[in-house]
């Protein structure tokens, strides 16, 4: 059995309630941090742990915290990014729904470490049923003296609020999220200044993902070194993986980083193999934005080593033969899947979600969707495939925020690894109907 930190108590009946959560040692990190540790000591433990941002970028959390400006008399904020919208990703939802107090505990301990007295959890609006769960949990935490004035009798005070988004993937980008939290359109800001210097209301602000903050209590309780001893290399600790697509057991799995991709896909502890006994064709390993890899390259690196579930191993080979861990949104496709049609759904997604601020992204994502629509319906030409390549290359690196890159990478990688399939769509449009309804394997009439 793999090491469980975040999901250790997930199956305990009533773990969503404050009483049961506390009976399992919940909120002990708040007690320890507020009563026995200095703010700097907590930041130091998080640095030592090697914890990296779990939203997708993988930036070291302790380092991010150490950038926080602390001018006298200016409020500081901690904002939790719960705008989980990366296609293939549903782990934050799972944590907040099943064990909401873990996030709240992480928020209190982290807010104390950063010297924030007001913190916000920005939740995507589509998750309103989760907002209800969080509001109830926060209410209970206030009543128990874990939030509000003089927490647990100390001189530390914290107010914690939930903010509802309203349907915009771009608000998962931290500066767009802050704009949205200020009641504006979610247009990303030009950086610098980074939020750690000028964030919410132009005050120093740290924005962290749900899973990142949920890992903080265990680090404070057991020490940074303990956490750094779990996992492999610079991929310390555990990671939640959202597994979906053509597998026998879709769901959220906590893995110790370093297990093999092969084990993750085929072992009964995790995905349980490919549905209906089919063969594996391709995997998008870290949410829609990361490069898609064909079966051989996701299981084995270009050097012939077994690929591991870690930041470094998944990235091995660069974009020529590797990918990224990203958000851990692991989408599995069987041998019947049309890469062209799957890519079309991604291209449509990014076009829909582009905020429209930068021309390469606004115009480019629209063009990519149109061209892929044309190709998938059998009206494409070989020149269209080249044009698609050309457009993605001109978006990448030319936008204010990473949405442009995120839109370009799936297109580039699909063409890089599956060019023959694009050419087949163009040359043999009559063959398309044969591959079109592979996904009907899932017999909806009887499932």
């Amino acid at each position, binding site marked *: 059995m793999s090491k469980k930190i975040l999901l250790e108590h997930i199956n305990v009946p009533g773990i969503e309630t404050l009483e049961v959560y506390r009976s399992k040692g919940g909120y002990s990190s708040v007690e320890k941090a507020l009563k026995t540790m200095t703010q700097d000591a907590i930041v130091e433990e998080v640095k030592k742990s090697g914890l990296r941002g779990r939203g997708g970028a993988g930036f070291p959390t302790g380092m991010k915290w150490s950038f926080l400006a602390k001018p006298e008399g200016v*409020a500081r904020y901690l904002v939790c990014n719960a705008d*989980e*919208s*990366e*296609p*293939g*990703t*549903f782990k*934050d*939802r799972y944590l907040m729904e099943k064990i909401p107090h873990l996030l709240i505990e992480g928020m209190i301990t982290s807010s104390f470490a950063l010297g924030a007295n007001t913190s916000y959890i920005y939740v995507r*609006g*589509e*998750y*309103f*049923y989760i*907002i209800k769960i969080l*509001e*109830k949990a*926060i209410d209970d935490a*206030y009543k128990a003296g874990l939030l509000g004035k003089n927490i647990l009798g100390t001189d530390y005070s914290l*107010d914690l*609020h*939930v*903010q*509802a*988004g*309203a*349907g*915009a*993937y771009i608000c998962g980008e931290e500066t767009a999220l802050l704009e*949205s*939290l*200020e*009641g*504006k*359109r*979610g247009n990303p800001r030009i950086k610098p200044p980074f939020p750690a210097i000028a964030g919410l209301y132009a005050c120093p602000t740290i924005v962290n993902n749900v899973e990142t903050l949920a890992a903080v209590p265990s680090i404070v309780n057991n020490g940074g070194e303990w956490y750094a001893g779990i996992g492999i290399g610079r991929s310390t600790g555990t990671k939640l993986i*959202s*597994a*979906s*697509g053509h597998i026998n057991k*879709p*769901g*959220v799995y906590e893995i110790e980083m370093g297990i093999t991709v092969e084990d993750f896909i085929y072992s009964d502890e995790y995905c349980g193999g490919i549905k209906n006994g089919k063969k594996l064709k391709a995997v*998008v390993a870290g949410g*829609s934005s990361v490069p898609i890899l064909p079966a051989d390259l996701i299981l084995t690196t270009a050097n012939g080593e077994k690929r591991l579930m870690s930041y470094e191993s998944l990235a091995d080979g660069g974009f020529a033969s590797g990918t990224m861990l990203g958000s851990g949104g692991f*989408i599995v*496709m069987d041998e019947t*899947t049309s890469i062209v*049609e*799957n890519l079309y*759904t991604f291209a*449509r*997604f990014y076009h829909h*979600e582009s905020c429209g601020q930068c021309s390469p992204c606004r115009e480019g994502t629209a063009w990519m969707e149109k061209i892929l629509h044309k190709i998938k319906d059998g009206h494409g030409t070989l020149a269209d495939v080249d044009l698609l390549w050309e457009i993605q290359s001109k978006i990448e690196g030319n936008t204010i925020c990473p949405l442009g890159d995120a839109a370009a990478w799936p297109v580039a990688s699909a063409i890089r690894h599956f060019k023959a399939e694009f050419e087949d769509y163009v040359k043999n449009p009559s063959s398309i109907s044969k591959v079109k309804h592979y*996904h*009907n394997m*899932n017999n*909806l*009439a009887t499932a």
Partner: protein
Amino acid sequence: MSEIKFDDNSLALVQSIIKRYPEGKQKSALLPLLHLAQAEFDGWLSVPAMDYVASLLSIKPIEVYEVASFYSMFNLKPVGKCLIEVCRTSSCWLRGANEIVDHIGNKLGIKPGETTADGKFTLKTVECLGSCGTAPMLQIGDKFHEDLTFDKVDSLLDEWSNKTEHSKYLDVNTFRKN
């Protein structure tokens, strides 16, 4: 059309929400208030409804319009009593989202983006709702309906045919009163 004015209960919630932000930063309450307005005023945001929210926050109407038009959950045109939102991005598509959309469309005699003549149902296709492991899925109000089959969809449509209220993302009790 309901009168464009919150009742006392909702107005108390509005004040409580505004207090979540520092003084002078009440504009931060815009998204929650637009959600509340949409839930209370027939499921969409008319110009008078947006102007009303602007007045509650002492901001200009344009500051509300530009935000309402940015976010996909805000409806700027009337929708049916039951707004059906079907996810169709990758993981849902892999497990049959297109067939679910077609099935609903055929049953109701409408295409995505359209409302039935009796004003009962609107069918909308949306992008990833974070339900990839339980695909295919659709959302009605604040409820996720997952691992869909045609049978499940049929019983949902039956259930909603008999309801008189609007599907809603939230109500006045969703947010805690601080």
